[in-house]
């Protein structure tokens, strides 16, 4: 079967800044942090952490009460992002004549409906109740978001969720891309969403000692990838969606094409659950370049995984230097997590959107708060303020997960 080209025709996300997707990218380019301070009233000890909240998001307004009430927050964020991407693609919410039987959804989420289960535990153990709402199962299941999307948009093809920790939505997007490229699906809706603010989840991350500290004053600059004084990652909630479409189908209906997705590669370090290894990342990067038919010299930007952990950042730079060789010194690299935080299963989808918009707008968003580069992270061209004026032909987005799973996506610019 001949391979199809795959157009990106829809982009949508729930922005922690409160605006639309274009506004989100503008804020990233301005170096504006969305990181705030989360202080809860939990007993015995409240959460007090830097966190990225979509505080302006009202699910009843975005989705309507009946739909919102059947969803956990991770599915609400996902559905809202999916609707925005779908509308952005110029597709009708209801099938209008054309069969959608081979249109599908591949969604990423690391945690799924954890908040629904946590509510259940609280009721059972704290409130002394004996039973739970019958909706708990359908709120909590990991495939709730994609199931709702298929129902809402009448998509009769595959509907699946991918749970691969921090690489969940990179793998969802990659698997969706392959289905469109192979001709199996005409359109795939893809992306990811997560809500890591469940008390037990946030506490568990704290226990790993990988979270950056911060209070009401300092949280905005808490996430400092590649910086010599970085202290760790910042969690956040989020939802982001892309519409991937058979190129000819997109052209035939006159859709706007934001960019082209051209490659996807995955690997596993197969060595350690949390300590990343450059060799595994190198293989994922090389597989992606080969899949895309791109040479290292054609890549003009890499959106790094860059979480700002002590161990992770230098390993990623080592991997990039290995793959890009002489070109590495001129390779523009930035970690936008410095501003939108790490939303686990939503992170790669948010970063895929940032990468596509970088190509569309021909602007590299920066790594924020990078005043002093860690000597262990030198050797690439770290972008610390938004950069325009150099042509961006193709770009990569890296996602490296706990468990050792690596996923890299490749995109090409499309003349607008």
């Amino acid at each position: 079967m001949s391979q199809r080209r795959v157009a990106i025709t829809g982009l949508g996300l729930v922005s922690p800044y409160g605006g639309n997707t274009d506004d989100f990218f503008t804020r990233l380019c301005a170096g504006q942090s969305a990181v705030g301070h989360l202080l809860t009233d939990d007993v015995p000890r409240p959460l007090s952490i830097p966190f990225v909240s979509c505080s302006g998001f009202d699910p009843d307004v975005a989705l309507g009460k009946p739909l919102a009430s059947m969803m956990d927050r991770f599915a609400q964020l996902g559905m809202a992002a999916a609707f925005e991407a779908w509308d952005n693609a110029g597709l009708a919410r209801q099938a209008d004549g054309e069969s959608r039987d081979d249109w599908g959804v591949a969604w990423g989420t690391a945690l799924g409906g954890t908040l629904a289960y946590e509510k259940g535990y609280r009721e059972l153990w704290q409130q002394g109740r004996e039973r739970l709402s019958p909706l708990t199962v359908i709120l909590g299941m990991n495939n709730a978001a994609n199931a709702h999307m298929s129902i809402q948009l009448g998509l009769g093809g595959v509907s699946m969720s991918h749970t691969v920790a921090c690489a969940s939505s990179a793998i969802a997007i990659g698997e969706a891309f392959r289905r469109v490229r192979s001709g199996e699906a005409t359109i795939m809706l893809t992306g990811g969403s997560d809500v890591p603010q469940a008390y037990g989840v946030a506490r568990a991350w704290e226990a790993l000692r990988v979270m950056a500290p911060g209070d009401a004053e300092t949280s905005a600059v808490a996430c400092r990838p590649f910086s010599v004084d970085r202290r760790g990652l910042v969690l956040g909630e989020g939802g982001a969606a892309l519409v991937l479409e058979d190129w000819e189908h997109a052209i035939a209906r006159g859709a706007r094409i934001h960019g082209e997705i051209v490659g996807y590669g995955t690997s596993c370090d197969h060595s350690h659950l949390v300590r990343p290894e450059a060799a595994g990342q190198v293989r994922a990067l090389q597989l992606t370049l080969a899949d895309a038919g791109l040479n290292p010299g054609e890549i003009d930007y890499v959106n790094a995984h860059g979480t700002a952990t002590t161990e992770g950042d230098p390993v990623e730079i080592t991997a990039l230097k290995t793959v890009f060789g002489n070109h590495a010194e001129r390779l523009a690299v930035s970690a936008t997590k410095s501003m939108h935080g790490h939303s686990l299963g939503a992170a790669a989808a948010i970063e895929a959107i940032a990468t596509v918009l970088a190509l569309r707008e021909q602007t590299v968003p920066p790594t924020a708060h990078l005043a002093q580069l860690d000597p262990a992270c030198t050797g690439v061209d770290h972008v610390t303020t938004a950069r325009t004026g150099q042509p961006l032909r193709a770009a990569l987005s890296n996602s490296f997960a706990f468990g050792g799973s690596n996923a890299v996506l490749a995109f090409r610019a499309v003349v607008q």
Partner: protein
Amino acid sequence: MDSIGLIRDFLKDRLGVEPENVVSGAVLADLGVDSLMMLELMFEFEDRFGIKLSSDLKTPRTVGEMVTLMDGLYSQSKS
């Protein structure tokens, strides 16, 4: 609170249905109550009135049938 009050509260809270539309002859499915929402409504009813519904109850079709069912069970549970 009486049965109709509880049903009105529930439908307003969960589905945004205006209380004046929750009348005896209204078909529950038309108000947006599908099988899942029905389970949730019964759960809420059990919770509020402290009773346990038998699992082989006939599913009510209208608001009126639901009220009759609830009132009947509630008075049984008290007697």
